[in-house]
């Protein structure tokens, strides 16, 4: 399930702590980034790597927001709707995405490319409104910049498909 390089990364993570259990969050990040979600089989694999009961791994996955046990869109649009963003019109961000992609909060586009999520404060209150697209922050959003971000994803996907 993990490549040799990923396994080396796991070893490096383990070396940071007196007990290898502490490496679990880092290991789950590798898994989450690689597959987009962590099902039971993957959780069991992590459990074996760290010699932990699978229930422990499943418990950790369910506790933290960033680990998913089911697939989401390839590009996760997480719009912060907390106070500072609300005050600077996060409603506009949601409306713009809805209009462009035809999805509401919690939904996914049919091609599986995008899913729309409500986020809690992401630490960009001074550059609100904002959303994250996977790991990238998009700040000071306007309808134009939101559409441009979506355009550039479509363009990237198109060129990737063309190359394959």
């Amino acid at each position: 399930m993990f490549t040799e390089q990923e396994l080396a990364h796991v070893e490096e993570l383990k070396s940071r702590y007196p007990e290898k259990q502490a490496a679990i969050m880092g290991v789950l990040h590798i898994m989450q980034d690689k597959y987009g979600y962590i099902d039971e089989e993957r959780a069991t694999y992590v459990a074996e790597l760290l010699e932990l009961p699978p229930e422990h791994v499943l418990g950790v996955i369910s506790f933290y927001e960033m680990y998913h046990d089911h697939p989401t869109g390839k590009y996760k649009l997480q719009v912060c709707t907390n106070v500072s963003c609300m005050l600077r019109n996060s409603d506009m961000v949601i409306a713009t995405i809805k209009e462009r992609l035809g999805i509401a909060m919690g939904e996914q586009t049919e091609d599986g490319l995008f899913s729309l999520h409500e986020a809690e404060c992401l630490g960009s209150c001074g550059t609100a409104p904002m959303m994250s697209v996977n790991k990238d922050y998009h700040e000071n959003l306007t309808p134009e910049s939101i559409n441009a971000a979506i355009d550039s994803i479509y363009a990237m996907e198109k060129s990737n498909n063309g190359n394959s």
Partner: protein
Amino acid sequence: MIDYTPVVLPNIENLHEIDVYEKHGGYSHIRKALGMQPEDVIEVVKKSGLRGRGGAAFPTGLKWSFMPKDNEKPKYLAINGDESEPGSFKDRQIFEFNPHLMIEGILIAGYAMGITSAYIYIRGEYEKWVQMVEKALKDAYDKGYVGDKMKTAFSSDYTLNIYVHRGAGAYICGEESSLMNSLEGKRGYPRVKPPFPAQYGLWGCPTTINNVETIANVPLIIDKGAEWYAAIGAEKHPGPILYGISGHVNKPGVYELPSGMLLTELIYDYAGGLPGDKKIKMVIPGGSSMPPLRGEELEGIRMDAESLKAAGSAIGTAGIMVMDEDTDIVRILTRIAHFYWIESCGQCTPCREGTGWMLKVLHRIMDGQGRMSDLDLLENVASNIEGNTICALGDAAAWPVKFTVQRFRKELEEYIQQTSEVAA
């Protein structure tokens, strides 16, 4: 505007690069500290008056002095960069623009307390900033400023390893005991105190938890002295503060200024006032869990622990959220209540049930089904959470509701009167 030159986030290009940081005196402060006795380093920090920037404004030197001296077990330092309190976005600036100041602060704190290993806990969503910190850390390791090579670089016996630990999206993990469970690879449930971290922390060993900004102040204190530091800003809560101003202002952002600034000066002179010159309805001065203040009662309130306490609020993370006269406070309060309900870990009944109950009542009011008696009900539920829980998230959930109902009673009554079908 006052005459002040930033020191935590100074205006120096590429300061995040280790060469630039060194050129401006970087990593000479740990050298200086290593020439002192560890107790004397703690003494200097005590004298400086530095207080924690993570929310509770606890005196840092005093906290350090709780760590046992003669101890066979390892000792740990955890740096809190979870930064998830709505309205807070300051530690991110340190990660991005001055990460070496934080690293050097960790080294000094480590030496002062005899720390074996230090962990920088960074919220999972800050992946880009995690990478920046890891890069800075790697550069510092390569130069021998961190890790075993400190022996040669500083010709000292003291060495310290520093690691980054990336969170994964849970506000509660900013609470220090939850953070420790999370670091140990568990679900982030807060622990019952006592025992306190200085006795029984990470892996059962003595541990100190400090906020990122707190620790970044330390090299400055060692460099320029406790007296210099104590003379900046408010007497009982001195030093520079990274004020994060957001919401309805023309120039939102992080402003480094002395503690004790007038709230009105920050909002009008620095953050450029409100768009359309509107009046202020409400200000939350320290992140969303702090008691909100009325717009017309801001005159004379200063941003330091004492002044804000006297005004009926608290400094928290110094994240100032400004709301203009047209703001729908029911919607804002409902959003805040939603946040604490979602983030409650569910261990304590008053917090788990109370946050859900407050949210339900607020939704009812927003949906035109509110009753006048709902306001008393909200206050009542909030009071039952406060002080009755394992961790301070309970208070954090209760305060905004309780104080908004108390301080904006007239507005809320009008809201119900005008919108409710069942007001009575």
